[in-house]
C-alpha cells in the first residue's frame, strides 16, 4: 500500500475556493483516502477564502493523517497565516495556561 499520496487542490477545486462547504467536502474525501500521509498541492490556487482557510486549518490540526502542504502562493500563504493567527488568539484566550499556544508546534 502506498504510504503517501499527493492531491492537487487545483484539479479538485479550481483556482479560487470560496465556500466553507466546498472545502469541507474536499477534506472529507481526503480523510477517506487509504494513505496515511497526504501532500496537498496548492499549485495554481490563486485565492482561498477566510472560511475555507478556517476549515483547512481545523483539518490540519485534528486529522489522524500526516498532512503536508506545498506550493502555496504568497497570497494563499498570507491568508493561511492570518487565519491561523486568529485561531491561535482564540485558543490562547481559552487555555488557562496563557503561555502555551495549542496550535503552535514551536
Amino acid at each position, binding site marked *: 500500500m502506498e504510504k503517501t499520496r499527493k492531491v492537487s487542490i487545483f484539479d479538485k*477545486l*479550481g483556482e*479560487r*475556493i*470560496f*465556500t*466553507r*462547504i*466546498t472545502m469541507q467536502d474536499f477534506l472529507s474525501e481526503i480523510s477517506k483516502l487509504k494513505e496515511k500521509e497526504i501532500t496537498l498541492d496548492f499549485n495554481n490556487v490563486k*485565492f482561498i*477564502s*477566510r*472560511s*475555507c482557510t*478556517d476549515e483547512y*486549518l*481545523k483539518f490540519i490540526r485534528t486529522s489522524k493523517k500526516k498532512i503536508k502542504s506545498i506550493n502555496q502562493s504568497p*497570497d494563499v500563504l*498570507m*491568508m493561511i*497565516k*492570518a*487565519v491561523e493567527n*486568529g*485561531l491561535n488568539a*482564540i*485558543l490562547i484566550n481559552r487555555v488557562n495556561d496563557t503561555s502555551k499556544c495549542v496550535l503552535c508546534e514551536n
Partner: protein
Amino acid sequence: MNLKCNISNTDDPLKQIQECIEIINKIDEAELKNGEILNLDFSDVEWILPCSALLLSNKIIEACKIMDIEISPPKAKGVHDYLVRIGFPLGCCSEGNTFLPINHFNNKDNVNEQVLKISGHIEDKIDKNFGFSINYLLAELSDNIEQHSQFTQASIMTQYYSDKKYIDVGIFDNGITIPTLFEKKGLKFSDDCDAIKKAIEGVSTKEEQGRGFGLKTSKNLVLEGLNGEMYIISKKGALILNPKNKEKSQELMKKALKGTLIYMQFSAPKKGLNIIKYVE
C-alpha cells in the same frame, strides 16, 4: 391586474430599497383570479439603482413560479436599455464591459461554482488595485448565505463605473434573515438593527471556534480598506456603514424585507490592496 411600481429618481439606495420592499409586499399580497396576469408597471421609472434591480429581480423570479407576470418597461430609454443589459429580471448569460448581469442561483445550485463564475468574469473588468477584495467579499457573503440563511433564491450583481473606478456590489438572499436566525438560536437582541450590529461585531449562531468573522471582516475591508459604504438590510433592520461616521444611521424599516441584502459601494484603491490586513 396592474401594479404600479414607483421608484424615486434618487441616488439614495435606502430610499429606493424601501420603495422596492413596498413593491415586493404588493406582489405577495396580489390576489389574482384564475388565469389573471400580474403586470408590473415600471413605465414611469426614470432611475434605478443596482440594489433595486437586484431586489426586484429576485422577487420576480421567485414569483414567476406561482403566478404569471408581465412587465411594462420604463419609458425612459436609458433605464430601459440598462435593465435589458443587466438581464432584468431573469438574469442573463452575456456580460457587458462594465457590469455583470444579475446572477440568480437557488439552493440546489453549487454556490461555490456560481461565485467562481462571477468572480472570473469581474476580474478582467475592474482596476487591478482592487486585488482580491471582490473575491473576498463574494466569498464570505455567499458563504453566509449557504451556511445560515436557508435560502431558496439568491442574487448577485456588480456594476463597475470604469471612468470613476467605482463599483457597486449587491448580494441578496430570500432566507430567514439575521434577526430571525438569532431568535431561533436564542441569541438576545433589542431590535432588528441590533441583531445586524451583533452579526457584524462577530456574534455567530455557529458554536465552533473561528466562526463569526465573515461579515465582520467584510465590513472592515469595505470601510477601512476600500473607504466604501455598506448597507445591510435584513427584516426590519437597516444599517448603513461608512468610514466617516462608522454608522451613518440605523433605522428600522416600516415594512420588513423578506431576506438579507448587502449592498456595497467603493472606489479602486490608489495602490494594490492587500486584503490580509482586514482578515482576523
